[in-house]
């Protein structure tokens, strides 16, 4: 059974990451990119993307596409 990665806000309509979702997202990020020199920037992007996603806002152009895919993946799992 999949663990929920988001919760639905009562008044906003969009979904926010749960701890399980965050753990899964960062686990995958770490597994795939920890050895890369880009890891720090990807992590910075991930934190910002999660915050924007939690706020129901578009992720913008400055965030790395790999991070956007991850955020969308875990969003889709909800």
């Amino acid at each position: 059974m999949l663990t929920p990665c988001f919760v639905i806000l009562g008044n906003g309509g969009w979904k926010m990451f749960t701890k399980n979702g965050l753990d899964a997202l960062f686990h995958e990020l770490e597994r795939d990119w920890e050895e890369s020199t880009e890891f720090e920037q990807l992590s910075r992007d991930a934190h910002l993307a999660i915050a924007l996603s939690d706020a129901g806002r578009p992720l913008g152009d400055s965030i790395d596409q790999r991070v956007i895919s991850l955020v969308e993946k875990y969003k889709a799992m909800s």
Partner: protein
Amino acid sequence: MPKKTVDHVVIRPGRRYGDSKVEIPVAKDLTTVPGVPIREEDVQFYSRAYPIESQNIDKSADREWVWTVYSDEMIEYRKKHDEHVKPLVDAAFESGELEPTGVSVSGKDLTEQILLKARELGFNEVGFTKFDHRYAFTSKKHWSKYEHAICLALEQDYLWTQTIPSMEAEWAHFGTYEVEGALALDLGDYVRSLGYHAQIHSPNDNSGAYIPMFVEAGLGQLGANGQLLSPHFGSRSRLMLITTDAPVTYDEPVDYGINKFCEVCQVCVNRCPGRALIRDKVWWRGVEKFKVIYERCRPVMSRYEGCAICIKVCPIQRYGMNSVMEHYVETGEILGKGTENLEGYDFKEKGYFPPGKLPRFNREFFDIPHGRTEDWLFEQFMEKLEEKGSAGTQELATFASKVKTVLDKGRSTRGDE
């Protein structure tokens, strides 16, 4: 359609040397004053009547006590760190006496040259202001020799900082001091090569309270967590000064909107495990600021690897000031506030604390030695006298011996960082 009207836009250099400039929109309802609300006459009064002193002296009782509650790993690391920085601290202490190695060009302003060199060396924030003796420690009142202060901030590791509280975060914290202590010696050499003096104020042997000078130099504003919030990393940086007689142009304080932002945000206040942060600002020694309750902070940070939850959960630290302020202008909300990712944290054996939940500690947890070591010894001795009615010869001798040890050791601003 943005929810807020922009009052002004602050433009700052990029985080690293060579990075593009950033633009920080400051909403009208966050606009207060450049720097910090201040009553100059009160600052004068308090600095004269009640000058500040290093916590390494004024709080020496708990500075010694922390070693009794540190984990074995922490003790080992701190000892290595202290050994590692000792030569840097020694070199910095004497640096003000060194003569220039180059020949100065009369009247030439060196602001840009020093700024560029500092950025090349790796400092992320560099600013210039007057060394404000009102914020110098009593024990170092006459130590600082030169008029101008070069304010320097070095960012600490982003990834390790997000693991707060942890040993990794402590490596980031103390490790950054080690690096910047060495970089500052290089920058001092450079200033001397330009024909002027440079005195390094080691970050492991501070000469005063630096944040007011950083605010005056426009490098940030004081946050609700009691720390400098600078544009790129909030309080995820380590601060130090170099004073010099080189001709430089002072920077101006800036209104980044932080004075008001922290009143609205309050994430650090809500998430502080020790409940050491307060909701409202107070006027303190002539400055309107959020005042940290030391006695609520210290017992937690000592036992929980530096704690620093207030750094970790600050949205400015996590996302950068431009993202946070843009979000505020667009939505009228605080980016990340109330979310698991920003506010949730693991707190060692106490487990995970989501937004809205805090660790609990019993009253005895906060009962730690306070004040100077000699005052603490005397207080304990008085308590014994009250309890027993008198003191034996052996007890008197033990008390005297402990006080003598303190006297022999002397008072030093060194250590702790």
